[in-house]
């Protein structure tokens, strides 16, 4: 999928607004979470969105990833206006364009590390033989050669996050989203993971959009957007 804008801009977020309704039916309260956000992310960048808990970071990421639709505004990813896609098309779009790294790893407990990494390739309908080769290569790259046949509950937090990173990268997606990728890790492991992300960004040219509340984690980013109460307040605003 080639970008209409020349391939430089990977993500374009324009005037995105979203309001949640909370409370009992009939007595709902409106809570504006995203208030007219606009920004762009370029190909190959690491961008960090930093802000306090509850400032709307995750919600922003969910709208970009297509897990939900914002009330207003347009989001273009890799040249595709995501609002125009239906559920099935969104799923296929995510499979081909996105990788996800979650705070609590979100690995399949019933699958081994190897099988977890293999899962997106299975979804893509790639043959077992081809899968095996690429998963092996990816496991080596993230330093999991030894633990392929371990189940998630037999791995440390850092190892689990590596599995999750390997799973996110296995389909060679142009964009990787990370929501508090080191939130569940101790500081030493955090450093390992951040180095790995930097390394993968440099070697593979993957675009990273990273959400964090931690200034130190944000320090590996090329650019940082600061969010407060649903607005971008400081940083390299467009």
């Amino acid at each position, binding site marked *: 999928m080639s970008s209409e804008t020349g391939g430089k801009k990977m993500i374009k977020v324009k005037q995105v607004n979203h309001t949640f309704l909370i409370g009992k039916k009939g007595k709902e309260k409106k809570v504006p979470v995203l208030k007219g956000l606009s920004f762009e992310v370029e190909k190959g960048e690491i961008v960090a969105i930093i802000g306090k808990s509850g400032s709307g970071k995750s919600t922003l990421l*969910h709208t970009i990833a297509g897990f939900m639709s914002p009330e207003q505004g347009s989001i273009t990813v890799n040249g595709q206006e995501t609002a125009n896609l239906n559920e099935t098309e969104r*799923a*296929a779009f*995510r499979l*081909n364009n996105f990788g996800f790294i979650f705070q609590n790893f*979100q690995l399949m407990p*019933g699958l081994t590390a190897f099988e977890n990494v293999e899962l997106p390739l299975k*979804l893509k*309908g790639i043959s077992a033989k081809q899968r095996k080769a690429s998963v092996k290569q990816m496991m080596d790259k993230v330093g999991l050669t030894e633990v392929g046949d371990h189940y998630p509950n037999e791995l440390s937090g850092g190892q689990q996050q590596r599995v999750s990173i390997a799973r996110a990268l296995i389909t060679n997606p142009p964009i990787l989203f990370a929501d508090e990728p080191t939130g569940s890790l101790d500081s030493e492991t955090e450093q390992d993971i951040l180095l790995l992300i930097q390394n993968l960004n440099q070697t593979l040219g993957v675009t990273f959009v990273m959400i964090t509340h931690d200034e130190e984690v944000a320090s590996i980013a090329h650019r940082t957007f600061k969010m407060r109460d649903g607005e971008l307040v400081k940083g390299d605003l467009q």
Partner: protein
Amino acid sequence: MLFKDQVDFVRQHIKKNKLRVFMTILAATMGCAFLIVLASIGFGIQDTMRKEILQDQAITQVEVFPSENEELNLKEIKAVPFIGAIVQRTSMDTMTSFHFEDRMMSGDLRLTDMKEEEQSNLKLSEGRLPKNESEIIVGYHFAKNLWTDAERIKVEEGVEEADLPKGYEKSIIGKEVSLSLQPYESDGAFPERWDFTVVGVMENPAKDWIVDSSILMDESWLPKLTAAYEANGEQVPEIYTNTKIYTSSLEHVKSVTKDLKDMGYNVFSVSEQLEQIDVFFMAFKIGLIFVGTIAILISSIGIFNTMTMAVTERTREIGVMKAIGASPKLIERLFLMESAWIGIIGTLLAIVISYAVSFLANWLLPLVVGAALGEDEFSDLSITFSLIPWQLVLLASAMSIGVAMISGWRPARKATKIDVIQALRQEL
């Protein structure tokens, strides 16, 4: 996702919840086996009754009666395709007695065309068909009913069935018997006597309770016999004719029956009887299948429960799958495959179990019934209690698997509706 991988995926999930899935399969198996076994009783008894009918009589026989005040048009009947023989037996409304040595019996005299009898494949237990006018064949019980006067008086005074006189116990073949006629109202027989040689004995009727003491004689005798009435100044008795048509083979019974019916005659044949039985059993079997279906429906509640639990349990995993790009269609398919798998395994087990139960029933029940009645004969009888035709297997499988998939459908839909954000927020 490749089909093989989908199957792997489903298998992995089933493995994780072996016991629960096993219990659900058990319920599906029991439901389906119950349906098959129950319906098989209908098929089995129907089969037994059909066999009974086919055994009991000349299966190619078609009886035909004219409507009131009408007569059979033999020419027209002869033109019907596949007719092998038309046997017309004539009887007189009078008393006909046969005498042999000091014995005598009153039988049913029938006059017939021996050529047609031969063509109809009339079966004899002994001897042969008559070759000339002076030869006759007699019913299976003819000799047994040849009693002496003393024996007859004893019977009239009343005896137990076991004490009935045995009649003439040697072979009657080749013996000479003489016929006398006597109108019902008259006190004595005509003086005329006609002598015949018995050359054949007909088969024992298939039904135990039928006593065949008839006599078949060539139809050329009819004018001579009626002439005796005129000679003795009596009125000629009424003469009845019974017409039976024999088709050239069994498969033509149906078409001949239909053709004769279309001509406006009253027709009675095996195919008629079979049709009536089939109609009755069709209703009977539908009833049984209906009851069996209820069992399948009950087992489907189990499948619904199991699948709903499976979806609820895996909410987070489904959310992750959707997040990384599994389409709702795929999610739905994976769950449908799981419920279909339960249905298919349950059905396969049910088929095996049903055949085993059916086999055991057919083997054991006659023994049990025979022992209970204290009759050895019963165990020899080949009664089919349970019969499972492939159509029944097909129907039950389709229902069982179909119901399994329908009950898995709602949970599968529910899985596709799972919200990714909510699912990912779930605690591990």
